[in-house]
């Protein structure tokens, strides 16, 4: 196992690009993304893994970047909201008004995106299970459910 002691250079693959960054071994991935790479789409909401606002993808799987160390991300493909461009779920979020203040939105979209890539025909129980890791305080979740359904239709070419 690789050990890190002091500030060290990491090579991270983020949104398909190679990014070199100096980190402390106890820097979270969220901190490095936001403060060192200017990728502020992932949001701190609780920094305790409870709210999902910081969700990014690691090798396609949603992870909470506030409880992952940056050094753990080395060698993995990281995708942040900045790496998504006009995806079906982003379009569906706009069309279904699936956000209000928008602060939880990047985390929700990353989680939805991963779910739809993993289980394109996710049923309601699956949607509930996946998206229960994110908190939205503005909507009553109704529009988010609709947006997932719409994204499934968009992706299915309907």
């Amino acid at each position, binding site marked *: 196992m690789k050990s890190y002691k002091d500030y060290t250079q990491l090579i991270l693959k983020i949104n398909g690009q190679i990014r070199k960054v100096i980190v402390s071994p106890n820097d979270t991935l969220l901190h490095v993304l936001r403060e060192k790479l200017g990728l502020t789409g*992932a949001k701190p*909401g609780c920094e305790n893994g*409870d709210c999902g606002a910081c969700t990014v993808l690691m090798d396609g799987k949603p992870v909470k970047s506030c409880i992952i160390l940056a050094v753990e991300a080395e060698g993995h493909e990281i995708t942040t909201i900045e790496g998504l461009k006009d995806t079906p779920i982003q379009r569906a979020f706009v069309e279904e008004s699936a956000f209000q203040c928008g*602060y939880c939105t990047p985390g929700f979209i990353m989680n939805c995106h991963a779910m739809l890539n993993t289980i394109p025909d996710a049923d309601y129980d699956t949607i509930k299970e996946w998206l229960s890791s994110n908190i939205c*305080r503005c*909507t*009553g979740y109704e529009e988010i459910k609709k947006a997932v359904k719409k994204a499934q239709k968009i992706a299915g070419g309907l």
Partner: protein
Amino acid sequence: MGSIGISAVRKEAKDKVAGRLKYLNDYNSPDLLYGALKTSTFAHGRIKSIDISEALKMPGVRAVLTGKDLPYRFGIYLGDKPPLAIEKVRYYGEPVAAVVADSQREADEAVEAIKVEYEALEVINSPTEALADSAVLIHENMDEYPHIDAIRPEPGSNIANRTKIRKGNIKEGFEKSHVIVEETFSFPPSDHVAMETRAAVAEILGDGRIVIHSTTQAPFVVKNLMGAYFGVDPGKVTVIAHAIGGGYGGKAGMQLEGLVYLLSKAVGGKKVKLVNTREQDMITSPGHIGLEAKARIGASKEGELMAAELLFMFDSGAYADYAVNISRAAAIGCTGPYRVPNVWCDSLCVYTNHPFATAYRGFGHIELAFVIERTMDILADKLNMDSMELRMKNAICKGDTTPTQSLLDSNTGDLKACIKRTAEMIGWQEGSRVVTEDGKIRAKGFGCLWKAPAMPTNTDAGAIITFNEDGSINVHCGVVEIGQGIKTGFAQIAAEKFGIDVEQVHVIMDVNTSISPHDWATAASRGLMMGGRAILSACEDAISQIKHTASQVLRCPEEDLHVWGGRVFIKEEEHIGLLVKDVALGYVYPDGNAIGGQVIGRGKYISRRLTGIDPDTGKGNPALEWTLGAQAVELELDPTDCSYRIIKAACTMDVGKLINPAMARGQIAGGMAMALSFARQEGFEFNDRGHVINRDLRSYKTLRIGDAPEYLVDYVETPQGDGPYGARGLGEQGVIGIPGALANALSRALGVPFNHLPLTPESLWKKRRDNR
């Protein structure tokens, strides 16, 4: 196509789904210094010593401050709160020291090195305890605190405000009553849980000007209070509010701004950022008020309300902040939306050793409605009447008077129509309690709502409209975008007035108090109505300027011209006209001569004919408008373990006029979700030392997607005559009737009265066991 009543897409939608919209904490720069707070581990204690010597030696530390360094008292209505505790702490989580360092990590590490010794004082854990004769005083020097006239503190007690309502003759009212019910109610303090925690950045420029960036719903209030607290000319203070990641009232008033200014001052005016952790946002910064209440309501045999005697004892926590005005607002609307000829209400704001309270969606009304709506159901049971019918019978309407004896005018919404529609949507006639084949209980509960803005009598709004070379419009208004979609609503109002597409109206998202026209605050659900009026007025001003210039070119009277669809033209001869874009920045004749200059539309609105209330009777006219509505909840409960699932939440609201249906529905359904979460599962848990046990989002559980019910939302549109296109406020109202409706459904389901929140399955199970 018109622009009112369409679900125009939010102006900032694309940026939000791309993660590009910047919130305050997304702005970083190398010149920033970072603040961190040391907070109290005692709920009530004397500070024996604070040792900052180790912290000062830590790397990167620029300053360490304690209460002794900052001889100030803050408080929007009552000046009771030092920025850092002085001599004693009054709640668990209160800031006692602050560090400024080169990085957040260094600031956090230095905080750990500060050592504080306390001597424990008796902890007051409820309003009842605080009101006992033997109770210790949380604020011994209350008589020295400055306060506004509308607030009436009682020095020598723990009462920060008492508002009285005396309408009719309460004694006679009860004498005429055939049925009287009396009950007590309570819920603990809780939190807003906006997903973005509060943050502020301050710097002091070379000439002494102060620039503050803040997650604030009330930049103009902050500017003004900075002046009042620190003796600074408000003109030398600039407050900038970017888009906010959820407010719900928790980002109104003064939050971190005063303290972060003092931190900047301590490091020579350098730019300092202070961001709450989630835990600090929940308990160090203020949350939702708690309540203990007693209600006694009398009615005739036929169910006509005769008298209401109400005692509200709000749990303000350690400081008054907005709580003193919440208790006042609750008195003003104390009866809920019902006609009651005889009313006695004392609404108290009581200090305890809990985290302090500030504005929360519903502002006094969600709290009073829980008390009233539960009491209405208890009364209906005693009268052997259908609870919906009892509400219908007593629904307040035009011509009735409010508890402050103010007459409801022709702008009053149609509550009866709302009750009728909600009963239809929830299927009330099909039965409010049904046992299913698998032994589960399906139950329904009703709850009505009303709300008026609680705001100063001179609350105002302003708007400025300018034009671009393509004829498109820029709309600038000081209401803050907190997720409610107000900027888009404003664009729709302007687009409708000019007969152009919403796409041709641009909005200025940030509010800057040195640039934006004055606006009271993004609170009280008054943004749409008051900001909307200001925008209409700015449009009219711009239109008259366009006509003035065009009349010279077209050689016709100004009053014969019409502006619509990007043109200014003669009404009866539409082909004779000019493009607005050729006029709005000054008209240029073919020979090069120019006239008119640019059009700058100025608009304003100030609330109409409001007054304070009489200190002894509450008589007065404090309400700009009342939004009325009716709500209901249906749930399915498993009687074996009292677990339950909320199936439906319904609301019909008289919104006056729908401006944007998708956003209105979002506000109302979102409000219902927030209130269901609050009533079912939220509330701080305290140990016997007054510590908050559940101060993170793992132990303080908010509603998740799997708990969300189906929402049924409908509208009645009785125009608000003085509102923009007839619209009135709807942002907060969705929360108000829901806690009562949920408690009513559960009480009906189990045949046990549930008068205390939160209504967790465990609490239901215990109450049922105790009742047997």
